[in-house]
């Protein structure tokens, strides 16, 4: 498994653990109320599990198993893929926690923009690797 996949998949596992923790607090609070403040975890729960866990796992596994090129670099321009992973992680954290840290309008927009940029870079990287064997 290449280094980028190790980092992105391990990051996705961290988001899974945190996202499940937030989700468990939310569900517990729904059944046996602890505090209304717990509901503020909802955006982080959603972003962590949809983008931090599921999407990032897909990116890490795709980088690992999509067909490689005949000549080095076998997995294409790794810098594009690394930039995608970095943007995704910063985007998830900004989208999840930005509204807690600042009341500035548009902080969620910044987070979502970074996530969209990550998606664009990942597609740019992966697109030519979706090819028949030997091509």
């Amino acid at each position, binding site marked *: 498994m290449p280094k980028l996949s190790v980092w992105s998949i391990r990051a996705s596992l961290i988001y899974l653990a945190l*996202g499940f923790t937030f989700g468990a607090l939310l569900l517990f609070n729904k059944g046996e109320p602890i505090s209304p403040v717990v509901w503020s975890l909802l955006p982080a729960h959603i972003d962590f599990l949809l983008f931090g866990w599921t999407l990032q796992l897909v990116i890490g596994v795709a980088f690992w198993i999509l067909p490689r090129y005949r000549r080095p670099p076998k997995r294409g321009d790794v810098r594009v893929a690394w930039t995608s992973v970095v943007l995704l992680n910063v985007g998830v954290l900004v989208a999840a926690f930005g509204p807690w840290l600042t009341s500035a309008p548009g902080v969620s927009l910044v987070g979502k923009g970074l996530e969209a940029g990550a998606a664009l870079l990942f597609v740019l990287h992966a697109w030519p690797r979706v090819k028949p064997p030997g091509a």
Partner: protein
Amino acid sequence: MPTLTRWFVKASLVYFIAALLSGVILALRPVLDLPGFLNALGPVYFHLFMVGWVSQLIFGVVYWMFPKYTSENPRRSESLAWATWGLINLGLILRTLGEPLVAAKPGAGYGWVLATSAILQWLAGLAFVANTWGRVKER
């Protein structure tokens, strides 16, 4: 394909159907004037899909396909992986029953069903992470 992966994948397929059927019930509710507590199936619909179908399919395939932990112990702890399967499914079933129950009879003391479901699913997530972490490695 290991036995546990078959259980994960087949359970995920059942949730796939269950999720879409709960979506049908949600869409039918206003058309047929079904009881209002069925609106509580909203979060159930989403979690049957994302936890029951998507995540559980991933759990099963990861257990099967990720790099071996060691040659003697390729999938790390089989008992921890089975615990993940049991906890996630029991937790999700409890949620599926508990959400409409709590909505239909608020204050009747059924909140513990959701609280128990929360703890079971949380433990399942942690067990999966613990068992998978060491298998995410460079050659």
